[in-house]
């Protein structure tokens, strides 16, 4: 407490990352509302939350990976593969649950391979998952060159991405349940503490008895399974399996997670931060369209936001170091 007093106001604010992000989100939302009052319409807010849910479900897994010091660039391709497999299995079996099961199994399998490649074969996560991204993108075209149409029009399939639980869109409810579950896993369990320990200092974690390889494989499996689930939601929303979908999705997810304060160096990050980071990115994109600005600004703003997030993270680390050393 004594030490914290030595920080200036800006540095103190930085220590409350989530509050800072919430403030940024509110300011951006206010600015857009001034330009286009329809921003705060129920319909628009529902759309923003529905869209963000799909990204957030994948973001939960990515946050865990980054906390553990890893990253997964293959999720965009996995999402494309998931849409195609989901639609194809539902078509062939006329059963929604078989389709969902197949997609989750695909995600778990891809995560397992990624985990083994990174933790056992000691391939850098960036390189290993880029390789998986290429394998999956090629494989989805081998599986089906054309988009797969919805033949059975099962009600449950449509409701999965487009339906409502009371007033809440189904993907939002799914996201809330998963968010709450993984929040507990990350913050209240031994697994969560080991995740931070592994990402913070893998060598020290290993010496202290944590089986880091097993933990990293488990994290990859969870992350890919969540990404596959996100693909299944996208498939329902598109009403088809699209081998061309998911392009750049991994960057959207990673940008949201980093903006939320999760460090690329591992050992730091929160799910609340990710939630706010993803919402900020989505609100900016939504605002650009509502204000009828040039859509290319979405990419430009995303780039600036990422640089700002990393800059703030560096400042935060420096402020923390100041507390420790003084």
């Amino acid at each position: 407490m004594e030490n914290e007093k030595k920080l200036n106001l800006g540095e103190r604010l930085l220590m409350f990352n989530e509050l800072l992000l919430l403030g940024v989100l509110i300011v951006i939302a206010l600015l857009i509302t001034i330009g286009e009052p329809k921003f705060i319409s129920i319909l628009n807010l529902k759309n923003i939350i529905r869209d963000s849910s799909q990204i957030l479900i994948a973001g939960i897994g990515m946050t865990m990976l980054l906390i553990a010091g890893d990253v997964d660039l293959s999720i965009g391709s996995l999402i494309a593969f998931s849409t195609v497999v989901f639609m194809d299995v539902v078509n062939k079996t006329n059963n929604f649950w078989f389709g969902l099961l197949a997609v989750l199994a695909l995600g778990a399998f891809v995560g397992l391979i990624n985990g083994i490649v990174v933790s056992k074969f000691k391939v850098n996560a960036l390189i290993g998952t880029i390789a998986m991204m290429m394998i999956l993108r090629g494989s989805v075209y081998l599986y089906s060159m054309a988009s797969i149409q919805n033949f059975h029009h099962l009600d449950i399939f449509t409701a999965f991405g487009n339906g409502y639980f009371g007033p809440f869109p189904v993907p939002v409810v799914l996201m809330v349940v998963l968010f709450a579950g993984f929040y507990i896993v990350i913050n209240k369990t031994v697994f969560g503490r080991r995740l931070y320990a592994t990402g913070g200092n893998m060598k020290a974690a290993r010496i202290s008895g944590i089986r880091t390889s097993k933990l990293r494989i488990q994290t990859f499996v969870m992350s890919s399974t969540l990404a596959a689930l996100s693909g299944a939601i996208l498939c329902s929303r598109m009403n088809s399996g699209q081998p061309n979908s998911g392009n750049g999705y991994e960057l959207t997810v990673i940008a949201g997670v980093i903006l939320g304060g999760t460090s690329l160096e591992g050992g730091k990050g929160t799910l609340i931060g990710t939630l706010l980071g993803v919402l900020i990115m989505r609100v900016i994109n939504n605002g650009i369209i509502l204000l009828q600005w040039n859509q290319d600004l979405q990419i430009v703003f995303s780039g600036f936001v990422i640089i700002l997030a990393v800059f703030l993270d560096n400042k935060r680390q420096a402020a923390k170091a100041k507390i420790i050393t003084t």
Partner: protein
Amino acid sequence: MKKGKFFLMLMVIGLIISPALVFAGGETDSAAGSSDLPKKIGYVTNYATHEWYQNVIKGMQDRCDELGIELEVLDANLDMAKEVAMVEDLMARGVDALIVTPVDAAGTVALVKKAKMEGIPMVLEGNRVDGMEVLVAICDYDAGYKGGLETGKIAAKMGISPKVLAVDLPALNACVLRVDGFMDGIKVNAPDAVLVHRVDGKGSKDEALQVSTDALTQDSDINVIYGCNDNSSLGAYQAFKAAGLNEDELIICGTGLEGLAAVYALQEIPAYMVEAAMLPEKNGLTCVDAAVSLYRGEELPEHIVSATIALTKDTWENLYGIDADGKRYPKWDAINALETEAQCTKY
């Protein structure tokens, strides 16, 4: 001795006339080549994972099978360097004619020059390139215009004032022309039509879904959706549906009829009323015919226009059918009977 002299004379005569025979033979082959068919055509496409190109290839293959020509297809997968290497490889392997869909118009100029130097006829598909001999392509503005014309007719019949959401792909000039054409076309029969939103769906269904969701939030009174390709119109429709908006007064016009998606949409989605069909199979067939004509040394116009037509729920089956395996097939007689523009209204 006399026998020896006789054989010697025969050998000398043989030596003298054999090159002449070979040359004459070559000339004969060459002459035959100018009137006959190429044995092998190479096609380097820019993006074979797109359904449009898959059906272009299908049209090429059908025509080559009919003419007894071998077709080799290579996919540059949007990589210009790869395209250069593939075209050069086909040249080195001695194909009789080439068809190329340029990944990048400027990057293809050198390939056009090289093909000319090597004496290999080259047909370009889709994109104009400086120094080219022949281009086979649809007229994008006119395709959009026809779609707009038909949509305007329906809007007038339904008594609605069209408020249009156009899902564009500004990075592609062809798509920009289609949207411009659509808006000009729709105003012929519905002069009060307004372009409310023009968003970039990047040609993919997931992106079109997302940007249309935002656009429909701002303007929920949109009653006409135009997509510069099938993914764009179908993605926008999914956004419209998810927003729970009234589909009774909605008209959707897609562009392409690239694969099965638009066929199903015409069959199953009440609002999906018009398709500016670009007939990829016909495009492929026309490319092969152009390559054969070039190989024969025939004169061709610089731009051979491939047919487009606006189809509706009632007319699409005039040109396409669905077989027992659920795959679509072109009805060639009807497609070949379509009239084409002599030249495009706008480039």
